C-alpha cells in the first residue's frame, strides 16, 4: 500500500487488563496492529471495547499488562504517544454548546495554529466534511450524521499517525454510515492507521484488514475478515414463510439436506446459515430456497445478509451475543 512496511506494528499490547471495582472490564487482551491497516475490535455492548481503546489512547491506566504504541511505552511515555494519536470517542467528543467552527478553531489553536491559520484550517475541514453551512450553529443542533462528521473532523486537525474511532457508526442512518466508511478509507489511504470498534460484522468486514472479536473482556477470535468468515460462515438467508405454521416442516426439510437452520425471532421466520464461500455460497443459498419451493412451502420474502453479531458469537462461543453492560 504505502511506503511503510506492513510488518511494523503501531500497537503491540500484551495482557492488558482493567477492572472497575469488582467488575473486570478487560481481561488479558493481546493486540498487534500493523502500520497502515484498519483493525476492528468487534463485540457487543460492555464487552470491553471502549475500555481497551481508552487504555491504548492513554486515558486509562491498565491494572496490568504492557503496551507499546507507535514505539513508545504506554505507561512510561504517555506524552509521546499523545502527540501522535487522535481519539474520537463513542459519545460527543466536541463541545456541544459551541459551534462546529468554534470547536475546530479551538483545537487548531491547541495544536499550535495561530490566528488566521487556525481559522483557515477549520474552514478546510468544514468544507471537506460538508459542514460549511452548519459551521455557525451549535453542535447540539446537528443531526446524528453531522455530529459524527464534526467529531471525526475534530480528530483530524493535525493528521494523526494512529486514529482511534470508538463505535464510529453506532446509531447512524445508512447514508451517514457510508460517509463515515469513506472517511476511514481515505484516512488509511493517506497513511493513517485506524483502530475502530464496532458491533457490526459487516462494518468490520467492509473496512478492516484484521478483526479481533472480544467477549467479556477477552479476545475470542483474531484474524482477517476472510479467516473470520471461514469460521462463522459467509452469510445467511433470512426467510419469511407465507404460512407461519409451515416453519417446522421447513426446518426439518432443510436440516435434512444438511444446511444449518435456526428459527427466527418472529413467527414464520427462519435463518439459513451459509457455510460455503464464493460461488458455492450462492449455490447453497439458491439450493435452500429451491428446496422450499419444490416442497410447496410458500416464501413470502427472503433476504441475504451478513451473519449478525449474534450468529458470529453463536459459532465462536456457542451462545448468542448478549449486552454485557454493567
Amino acid at each position, binding site marked *: 500500500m504505502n511506503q511503510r512496511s506492513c510488518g511494523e506494528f503501531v500497537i503491540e499490547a500484551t495482557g492488558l487488563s482493567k477492572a472497575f471495582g469488582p467488575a473486570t472490564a478487560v481481561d488479558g487482551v493481546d493486540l498487534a496492529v500493523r502500520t497502515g491497516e484498519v483493525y476492528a475490535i468487534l463485540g457487543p455492548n460492555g464487552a470491553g471495547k471502549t475500555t481497551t481503546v481508552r487504555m491504548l489512547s492513554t*486515558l486509562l491506566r491498565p491494572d496490568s499488562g504492557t503496551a507499546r504504541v507507535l514505539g513508545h511505552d504506554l505507561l512510561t511515555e504517555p506524552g509521546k504517544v499523545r502527540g501522535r494519536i487522535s481519539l474520537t*470517542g463513542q459519545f460527543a467528543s*466536541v*463541545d*456541544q454548546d*459551541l459551534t462546529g467552527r468554534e470547536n475546530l478553531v479551538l483545537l487548531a489553536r491547541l495544536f499550535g495554529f495561530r490566528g488566521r491559520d487556525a481559522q483557515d484550517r477549520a474552514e478546510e475541514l468544514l468544507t471537506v466534511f460538508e459542514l460549511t453551512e452548519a459551521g455557525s450553529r451549535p453542535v447540539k443542533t446537528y443531526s446524528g450524521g453531522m455530529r459524527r462528521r464534526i467529531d471525526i473532523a475534530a480528530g483530524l486537525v493535525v493528521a494523526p499517525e494512529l486514529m482511534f474511532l470508538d463505535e464510529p457508526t453506532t446509531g447512524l442512518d445508512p447514508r451517514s454510515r457510508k460517509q463515515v466508511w469513506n472517511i476511514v*478509507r481515505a484516512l488509511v*489511504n*493517506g497513511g493513517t492507521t485506524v483502530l475502530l470498534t464496532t458491533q457490526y460484522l459487516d462494518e468490520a468486514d467492509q473496512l478492516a484488514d484484521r478483526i479481533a472479536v472480544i467477549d467479556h473482556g477477552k479476545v475470542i477470535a483474531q484474524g482477517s475478515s476472510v479467516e473470520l468468515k471461514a469460521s462463522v460462515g459467509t452469510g445467511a438467508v433470512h426467510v419469511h414463510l407465507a404460512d407461519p405454521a409451515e416453519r417446522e416442516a421447513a426446518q426439518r426439510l432443510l436440516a435434512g439436506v444438511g444446511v444449518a437452520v435456526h428459527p427466527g425471532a418472529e413467527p414464520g421466520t427462519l435463518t439459513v446459515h451459509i457455510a460455503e464461500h464464493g460461488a458455492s455460497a450462492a449455490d447453497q443459498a439458491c439450493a435452500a430456497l429451491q428446496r422450499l419451493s419444490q416442497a410447496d412451502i410458500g416464501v413470502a420474502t427472503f433476504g441475504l445478509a451478513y451473519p449478525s453479531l449474534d450468529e458470529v458469537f453463536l459459532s465462536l462461543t456457542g451462545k448468542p451475543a448478549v449486552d454485557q453492560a454493567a
Partner: protein
Amino acid sequence: MDNRSPTLGRPDADDPALAQLRTVLTARPRPPRPGPLTTSLVFGWRTLLRIKHLPEQMIDVTAFPIMLTLMFTFLFGGAIAGSTTEYVQFLQPGILVQTIVMITMTTGSSLNSDVVSGVFDRFRSLSIWQPAVLVGALIGDAVRYLLGAVIVLVLSLILGFRPEGGFLGVLAGVALVLIFSFSLGWLWTMLGLLLRTPQSVTSLSMFVMLPLTFASNIFVDPKTMPGWLESVVGCNPITHLTAAVRAAMQGTLTSGQTGVVLLWCAGLVGVFAPLTMRLYRTKH
C-alpha cells in the same frame, strides 16, 4: 495500491471526494506545540465562548451582586453604623469580597458537569500542557468575576461609597480580590472533580463558604466580637483579604497586608492545584 484481499470490494481510491480529504489531511505541516501560556489562554477563550452561547451563566455575576449589596446595605446600615451612607464606606470592600468569593463556587459545579462530557476525553488525549484545561477555565472565570466586581462598585458609588484611595486604590483592591478568587478556584476545581454531581459540589461549597464569609470582618469589626471568636476570625483568610481590600480603597494598603494575602493565595494554589491535577489525570 495494496496487498489486500481483492474480494473485499474496496472502493476506487480515485474517488474525488476521498482525494480531496487526503489532500486536506496533509495540506499543512504540523505547527510547533504551543506553550503553557498560549494553551491556557485558548482554554480561557473557550470559557468566554461558552458564556456567549449560554448567557444565563451570567446571572450569578449580575443579579447576585446587586441583591447582596442592596440587602446588606439597607438591612444592617442603620443598625450597625447609624446610616446606610456611613455603613457603605465600611461594607463596600467587604461586600465586594463576599460577592466575588461566593461566585467562585460556580467554577466547581460547572467543571463537574463539563468534565464528564466527551470533550474532556479529547482534551486529555491531546499533547498539550494538561493543567491549561483548568488554568484556562479559571482565567475565563476571572473575566466573569471582573464583571461582578464592576457591578458592585458602580452600585456602591451610587449608594454613596467614596473611596479615599481613589481610582488606583480601587484598582489595587479589585486586583487583590481577583488574584485571591483565582487561587481559591483551585479548591472548587478539586471538589468539582472529587464529587459525583454538580448538586453535591454546590452544597459542600456552601458549607465551606458561609462560615468563611460570615465569620470574618466583612460585616462587622471583629473588635465587637467575643475574644474566642475574634481569634477565629483573625485566622480566616477572608478577613486578611477584606482588611487588605479595605486598606487599598482607603489608600492605606501596606506591603505587609498585601504579603499576607499573596501568601494565602500561594498556599491555596500550592495545595489544591496539584490535588486537582492528580484527580484530573485519573478521572475516567
